[in-house]
């Protein structure tokens, strides 16, 4: 019963936040709504006994990524409200509607049809439950997924280089002077 209540509450938070993200006029509000969703998901993680992930979710996502977003919003000063009139593009609104409605329809269909969504495949990476969540995670990370784990370093290196390159003010471009290409 408690599970149910927790799920429903957390789900409500998630969905409200998600809708908030896409419907808020001000990007700052969107970012804050994103935090709300991320928080809701962290709650779900706890409910799913992924305690460590719940912590990481809050720290990394809410703590780092969203802050980064806010940082950029402030840096660029784009925290103005945006006209939410859905589209200047002709078909966009309808396409989005089709996507949303279609996806939900398929989802509903699946909910009705599918009895057991997940297979009864045997556990590969070791049991997920138990009070040694962190230990299990670590073992998994350094055995089955060690290669992936190492690869994340590659990814981060690229991200760092990218951030440096992109943020660097180019030698020959002065400030925010209009581009040669834009003048044309």
């Amino acid at each position: 019963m408690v599970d149910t209540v927790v799920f429903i509450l957390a789900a409500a938070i998630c969905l409200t936040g998600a809708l908030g993200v896409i419907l808020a006029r001000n990007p700052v509000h969107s970012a804050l709504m994103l935090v709300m969703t991320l928080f809701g998901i962290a709650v779900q993680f706890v409910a799913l006994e992924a305690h460590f992930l719940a912590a990481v979710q809050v720290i990394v996502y809410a703590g780092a990524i969203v802050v980064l977003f806010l940082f950029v919003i402030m840096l660029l000063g784009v925290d103005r409200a945006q006209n939410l009139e859905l589209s200047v593009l002709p078909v966009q609104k309808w396409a989005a509607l089709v996507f949303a409605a279609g996806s939900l329809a398929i989802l509903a269909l699946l909910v009705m049809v599918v009895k057991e969504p997940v297979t009864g495949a045997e556990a590969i990476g070791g049991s997920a439950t138990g009070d040694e969540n962190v230990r299990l995670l670590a073992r998994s990370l350094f055995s089955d997924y060690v290669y992936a784990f190492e690869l994340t370093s590659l990814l981060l290196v690229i991200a760092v280089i990218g951030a440096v390159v992109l943020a660097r003010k180019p030698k020959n471009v002065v400030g925010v002077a209009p581009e040669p290409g834009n003048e044309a």
Partner: protein
Amino acid sequence: MGSLQLVGFVGPSVNWWALLPQIILLGAALAVLLVSALAPQRASTVFTTVTTLCAALTSFVVALGLWSDVKADGPSSSIASAFGVDGFSIFFTVLILIGLATTALLSHGYLDREEMDPPEFHALLLCSAAGAIVMASANDLIVMFLGLEALSIGIYVMIAMHHRRSEARESAIKYFVLGAFSSAFLLYGIALTYGATGSTNLVHIRSYLDAVVFQDQHLLMAAMALLLVGLSFKVAAAPFHFWAPDVYQGAPSPVTGWMASIAKAAGFAALLRIFFAAFASHDVDWAPIVGALAVITLVIGSVMAILQTDIKRMLAFSSVSHAGYVLVAVHSASATGTSAALFYLFTYTLMVLGSFAIVGAMGPDDEHPLSRYTGLGRSRPVIAIGFTVLLLAQAGIPTTSGFIAKFQVIAAAVESESYFIAGVSMVTAVIGAFMYLRIVMAMYVVDEGEEGPRPIWHWTTSVVVLAAVGFTIIVGLVPQFLIEFARDAVPVLVRG
């Protein structure tokens, strides 16, 4: 207590030889970065290019060694089955290294001309190449995903590095947003696959699917669909291709070449590994979808190509339709089809790299109108004939590798009795040929006395074009070696 358990922890065995190509590339990337950061003045372009080339060459040698190992001992996998060492992965490693060396050579003159930073560019290129290799070798969906991200993110940045052009940034953000969007689909597909099969490891997925008959396939179907979406985006198959022309046009030419060749090849590598190798038992489900995608891609690619006026966009749409041909081969879901796809990708990579080498050399990278090529046949006959060969190869004219590639694709389609698709691919080849002919026409059909352009021609470009043209013709005449190579490179999934 915990520490006791950790003592007993034994990590998975690692086949370092198999990892060596990636390690070399990453090492070179770091070396380039470090030297450029620490050196008193900016590292020279020569240094970065040579480093990249050396890395590519060393990796190449290692890859050849691995090839003989695989030939001798059979395929294997490493690091908890996450990394496959088979003909397939080495085939793509070789291909990616060729692409890497080529792109490095092409960027050599280009970076200076267009005022881009060589060290960062090369570091990203090397990382991107490593990501591509990972993607092609991955025996695990999540590893594949990480490789894809490494490849893609590197490319986003390389595109945006062309500071002077707003088009470059536009194409970067387009590629980025859409890439992230499609990555989400791909990831969702991985999640559903995980749910359906209990693992992200392809070896396990394969054996699970072979062993189990599902009562309820919906999850798996949705998973396959989403995986297909994510990878189709990478290979620029319609209707997930829209980014390609814009991005190709806006990106610096060497990067365009890289995207059109290696990013596409890596995408197909993943596609083949996942669908042909892992989902082999469900080919009746996915093959028709791939076939439909192939038809749409072929039609849209060829029809849109003939409307273009910008060479880079032309080649972009042509690359879309080439994705269609490979999809035709994938669609046949057979070893023949897979080796046809591999052959196609190999030859296509060389063609497209050569083509973009010429495009990049023809002049400032802002726009590439067809008129820029008018009379090239007269002013630069050698370049023009080289370009003609590459274009005709893409059109599938015999005595070029492109024809042999198309031939095998059609053969694969016929073998799987997909006559309609075979027919469509040949008809769209004709439509597409119109576009190639327009370029050839522009180069050769000039009024008397008219002089052609005289582009500044960096010798590295000549090397690339010469190599690409030579390869295209040699494979067109004596393709046996490459066919065998591709046949030996059909993916095999083995545990441990």
